[in-house]
């Protein structure tokens, strides 16, 4: 079971870059790393997914070191609207199909952005 560990909460200020690190020491060869964002009273929303090295989209970047035992979600120049809970998930298609392991959200990281 590829359990993930994230900080419970983080604070930052508008315009800053925020990095949220997720530890997943037991990540398996076929596992992907996926991040979701959740605002109050809404369902989670997909942010980014990666397997190795670096992935970037219009919202965030995901950095994955060579050993893949951790990953870092990077949010550039955050604004107040980035205040949300961020979840790191690790799993693959086979586990997602055979059981609930790959669909464990955990408690996430509550990011608070201040003016």
């Amino acid at each position: 079971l590829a359990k993930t560990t994230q900080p419970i909460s983080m604070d930052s200020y508008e315009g800053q870059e925020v990095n949220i690190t997720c530890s997943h020491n037991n990540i398996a060869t076929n596992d992907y790393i996926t991040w979701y964002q959740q605002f109050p009273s809404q369902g989670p929303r997909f942010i980014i997914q990666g397997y190795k090295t670096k992935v970037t989209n219009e919202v965030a970047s995901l950095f994955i070191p060579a050993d893949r035992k951790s990953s870092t979600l990077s949010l550039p120049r955050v604004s107040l609207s980035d205040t949300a809970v961020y979840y790191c998930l690790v799993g693959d298609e086979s586990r997602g199909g055979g059981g609930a392991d790959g669909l464990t959200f955990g408690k996430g990281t509550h990011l608070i952005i201040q003016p």
Partner: protein
Amino acid sequence: EAGVVQSPRYKIIEKKQPVAFWCNPISGHNTLYWYLQNLGQGPELLIRYENEEAVDDSQLPKDRFSAERLKGVDSTLKIQPAELGDSAVYLCASSLWRGLNNEQFFGPGTRLTVL
């Protein structure tokens, strides 16, 4: 394109009463998920459907919870009888196929309060 639709958005019932939640996934999505989310916690998977087949219901309390996805499209989650501890947000999500590497699209959820 319409997202995942859930109804009702809010439901208040007395304990021991039955309750049902409805979900209409994104058109063309084969996989449908029901999650439960308690306050301050991440979503927890209850059941996953591949078309009309429930392929993962290990986390569903089958003594009081039931679900169905007739014709492989929309789905209903039922609780009978409801208990105080069932108060939570019930989220529905869908994806093209199973597996963590397939983006899940979440609905807004149904907030259940059991008195």
